[in-house]
């Protein structure tokens, strides 16, 4: 318990070495932003958390240690829930409260305003206070009183629009439809085995080819966009800092202590007034690694930690949804911790939002990688992202069909995002799902030629984990929106419907079908070579021909020709789109790596099958991608 009086001058100016000028500036911000002094000092780059902790210790203050597992709500819990934002701002946690006794924990013992505020809200005098680190107080407040917000974050979509929630993977009608299709297929196989096999093969080949061709045409269409810039330099230069609105940046992290330092550096490079940025670092309450890393940071940071109370499913959308309730920007975006956005990206987005109609609620910026030359995998990943964000999404944009949002660098109009209900916490590609939901509500999504550099996955198994989640998410999204195909068609129109089928459905479909058809084809071509006869040397007969004769009943020569054409043209198209994408970015040395793309597709197929199995066994499981593995830098 603290009975002494503490003074701001002593703590911040003398011990914290903050100049008088800085203190004035913080006090100015305190008024304009309506935030407590300590929050501004710690979250706007004036003092590091470790330094603040040392000041308190030097001052002889014994820091209060919370027993987070046994925190209880006080009798006046409803008042605190109603005023949670104020308590978070005051960095004050009411520990014990009876009718005539109030004991609290605060972070800044020199700021009597905070104590007065608590007294005002609870209507009783503070009898006793402890001092603790701000992070601990934040955590205590969120896990004790943030549960209503947490419930909304998890079940918001389920409560408001049950049909759009991925909580149920397969609906009953979908299961019946799948079952019926399988049953009819089996019956056809039983009665007309040859024709059924040929027809099935032909359909799969046709769909695969059509899906790839669609992507190729999209790419071509998207490449048109490069001839026109959406925001010119003159438009950008004309922006006055005073007119800029508050901008929220959500930074969901999980066990990413390694990249926190980089994160601060990248955020500092943003060309946007710091006081107009509302940066939230979303830390899971059970993520001790990141939590401690932030607590122990020995240099000033420019973000505000926000502790997400524990709840299943432990997904990024849930964390972001929770963060929404504590955001105040007019616009909002999400970055990953290791992201390096173009420094003028926020201003560009602001200029674009000003330019386009209110119908547009999201702007998706391009993603690319800073560690592209690290190994083969990062090169291939760069090729893929380049064509996806530089050509495919602009292609969808030009065609005015639903755009599945990318994982980060999607910028929202905050009010519209809230109207849409945020992200679906049960969907593992919540971003793609949100893009479609926005479109279904007659809103539009557009893309912007500004790039955020991310860290490309440089580890095979890590890549498979990440990709399996993405593909599983696409399957989830497809199943959710196809619960009622007619309704979907009515909502998004014919163009949107076909775009959805080929872009979302076609993506996982091609990855699932590709290895099956390829195996058949390779096996038949292998038999044509006659090498099997040499392998089975103990048999004098022409085994290859024998097998070919048997198989050719189900796989006649003309079908082999169709399959070869399909695979050759399909692969070449995909190789080409990869090539032109990196050519545009002038990453010329990567062009030849596009030739390896067919093998990269096989990796996708492995992930697709993993995703499919998980879709059935663990639909909401979030396959965590490890970041910070790269040794490369921009």
């Amino acid at each position: 318990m603290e009975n002494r009086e503490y003074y701001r001058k002593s703590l911040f100016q003398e011990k914290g070495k903050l100049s008088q000028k800085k203190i004035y500036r913080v006090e100015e911000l305190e008024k304009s932003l309506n935030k407590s002094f300590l929050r501004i000092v710690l979250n706007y780059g004036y003092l590091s958390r470790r330094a603040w902790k040392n000041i308190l210790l030097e001052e002889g203050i014994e820091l209060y240690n919370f027993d987070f597992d046994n925190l209880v709500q006080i009798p006046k819990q409803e008042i605190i829930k109603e005023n949670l934002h104020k308590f978070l701002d005051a960095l004050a946690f009411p520990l014990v409260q009876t009718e005539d006794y109030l004991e609290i924990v605060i972070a800044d013992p020199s700021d009597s305003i905070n104590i007065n505020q608590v007294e005002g809200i609870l209507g009783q005098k503070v009898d006793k206070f402890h001092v603790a680190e701000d992070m601990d107080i934040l955590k205590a407040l969120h896990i004790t009183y943030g549960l209503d917000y947490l419930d909304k974050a998890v079940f918001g979509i389920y409560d408001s629009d049950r049909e759009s929630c991925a909580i149920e993977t397969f609906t009953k009608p979908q299961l019946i439809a799948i079952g019926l299709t399988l049953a009819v297929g089996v019956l056809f196989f039983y009665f007309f085995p040859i024709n059924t096999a040929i027809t099935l093969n032909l359909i799969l080949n046709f769909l695969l080819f059509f899906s790839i061709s669609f992507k190729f045409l999209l790419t071509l269409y998207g490449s048109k966009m490069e001839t026109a810039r959406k925001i010119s330099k003159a438009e950008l230069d004309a922006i006055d800092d005073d007119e800029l609105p508050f901008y929220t940046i959500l930074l969901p992290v999980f066990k990413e202590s390694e990249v926190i330092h980089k994160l601060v550096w990248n955020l500092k490079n943003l060309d946007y007034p710091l006081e107009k940025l509302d940066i939230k670092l979303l830390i899971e309450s059970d993520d001790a690694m990141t939590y401690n890393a932030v607590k122990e940071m020995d240099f000033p940071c420019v973000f505000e930690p926000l502790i997400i109370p524990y709840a299943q499913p432990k997904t990024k959308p849930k964390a972001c949804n929770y963060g929404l309730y504590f955001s105040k920007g007019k616009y909002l975006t999400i970055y990953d911790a290791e992201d390096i956005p173009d420094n003028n990206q926020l201003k560009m987005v602001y200029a674009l939002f000003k330019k386009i109609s209110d119908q547009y609620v999201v702007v998706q910026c391009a993603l690319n990688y800073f560690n592209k030359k690290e190994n083969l995998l990062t090169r291939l990943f760069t090729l893929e992202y380049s064509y996806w964000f530089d050509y495919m999404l602009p292609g969808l944009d030009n065609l005015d069909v639903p755009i599945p949002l990318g994982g980060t660098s999607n910028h929202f109009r905050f009010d519209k995002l809230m109207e849409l209900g945020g992200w679906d916490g049960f969907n593992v590609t919540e971003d793609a799902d949100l893009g479609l939901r926005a479109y279904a509500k007659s809103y539009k999504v557009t893309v912007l030629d500004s790039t955020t550099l991310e860290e490309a996955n440089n580890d095979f198994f890590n890549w498979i984990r990440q990709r399996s989640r993405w593909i599983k998410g696409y399957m989830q999204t497809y199943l959710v929106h196809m619960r009622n195909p007619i309704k979907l068609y009515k909502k998004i129109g014919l163009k949107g419907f076909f775009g959805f089928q080929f872009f979302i459905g076609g993506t996982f479909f091609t990855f699932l079908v590709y290895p099956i058809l390829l195996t058949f084809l390779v096996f038949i071509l292998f038999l044509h070579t006659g090498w099997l006869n040499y392998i089975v040397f103990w048999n004098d007969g022409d085994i290859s021909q024998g097998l070919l004769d048997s198989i050719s009943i189900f796989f006649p020569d003309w079908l082999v020709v169709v399959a070869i054409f399909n695979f050759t043209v399909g692969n070449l198209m995909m190789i080409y789109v990869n090539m032109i994408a990196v050519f545009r970015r002038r990453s010329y040395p990567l062009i030849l790596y596009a030739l390896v793309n067919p093998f990269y597709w096989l990796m996708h197929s492995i992930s697709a099958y993993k995703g499919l199995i998980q879709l059935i066994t663990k639909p909401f499981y979030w396959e965590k991608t490890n970041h910070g593995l790269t040794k490369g830098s921009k």
Partner: protein
Amino acid sequence: MKKQSIIYAICWLLFSSAYFLLSLWLQSRGFYNLEAYFIEYKTVLISRYEEGFLRTFFFTKPIILFLGSLLISFIKQSQSTYILNAIIIGGLTNHLFLKGLKRKLSIKVFLIYVLLSPIIIYSGVSGGSTALYLIFYFVFFTLLFKYSKSYSVFHLTLLSLLLGVFVLFDLELLKFLLLLIPVFFFVNFSKAKGISGNFYYRASIIFSNGSQRRKFFTGFFSSIFIVAFIPLMTILIYLVINKIFAGSFLYFMDGVGDQWSSYSTLYPLLYEDNYIWNVIAENTRSFIIPLALVSCLIVFNLFDFEGSVAKNALILLGILYCFSEIAENRIDNLNLNVLSLITAIGLAVVFYNHDKEKVEKPFKIVLGFIIPFILIFLEVIYFKYSVNYNERLYYQSVIEKNDNEHFTSLKNLSSSLKDQEKGRVLVDDAIYFASLTDLNSEFTWEGHFSPNFLAAMQLPQIYADYIIVSKPAFLLYPNDVVAASLRRLEHFGISLDTEILYEDKFSMLLKVK
């Protein structure tokens, strides 16, 4: 938007109809094109024999003309290539016309040229492959002009796609890749980031700095690689398909099917025409005259500077390309399939969007009115004296009604056969395809694609009811394998009991008893 689309579609339809009606009028005055018959014959063949589909489909040169015609082969009122040409050139005229109407006066007057140019009209009505060549050249140079300004991957990809598609039309078009090399070289100077100033300054900075030099050359070679990728891969796929169908990658180059097709189109078109031989035998530079006659439009454009060095460089490149092509092979290339390149460049330059439309001087406006008429006049002269038979026939058919002896013979054979009972015809269809196109489907013939062709030539009395055979007066008599086989039978003393149903100076129709 919708209204504009409707106007666009209606205008296209009107232009195409005009070209088509004109082609019918010309045909009624004796104009014909064996290339159109050849494509028509392929369409007939496609379903006639087992595996006919695959063999005809792939071993047809030019494949795009064939595929396009195949799509509209359900229209029986005319040979489908005439309709296809009318649609294609109708589209081009419509595009230029609607685009030209929005431009300044001196460009508007060029619409007179677009509407009345004998070369454009010939492409639209001749039923051959000139229309596709003209379209290819026009699109290619339009894209090239755009690329030289935008440096965009979009235009580069379209160039690659265009070459990739048209390489199936004519393998020789791959040469246009070479034409792109200097373009990429110079464009890369302008693409360099962080260097501003004139061309020489940029070049000096790039070549004096190691990093810039490296970027310059990787960018340059990458551009070539990107643009060459689709055409080369198209050829690869084509080779793979050949391998699958015929067991040999180069089957389409040395297979029977290809020999048949090249021999069929070329011989009747060129080798019956002595005029061309005279021109070639002169061994002078007189072949430049036709080139000069069609080049007036781009020469005019060359001096109408409009501040674009790139434009003039591309025009010169085009002229040099055309000149070298003709100089290399006058027999095959001294015709509009190559020379329409000049017309296409001219059109692309005139109708290419310039950023700033300058205020025009009166002199230029007056000149603008005169130029189209001069161009048309020179092109008329070109057609009058063309070394290509079909092009001359086009001119003659406009002037007066024509009657070609050889073609009349082919038509008479066909009509004589039609009057007979249905049966099997032994014929060298590489020569007589024009006669076979409009035969009733109940007639079958033993030709190059028939599995019994060899047997039929050995034993005509078993395999054939009728025989069509050429006579020594026919220039293709030495190439007629049926005539050769009959001579062989005669040589071995095997008599064939036949009755002559029709006979003229060139051919005979025999009935096997």
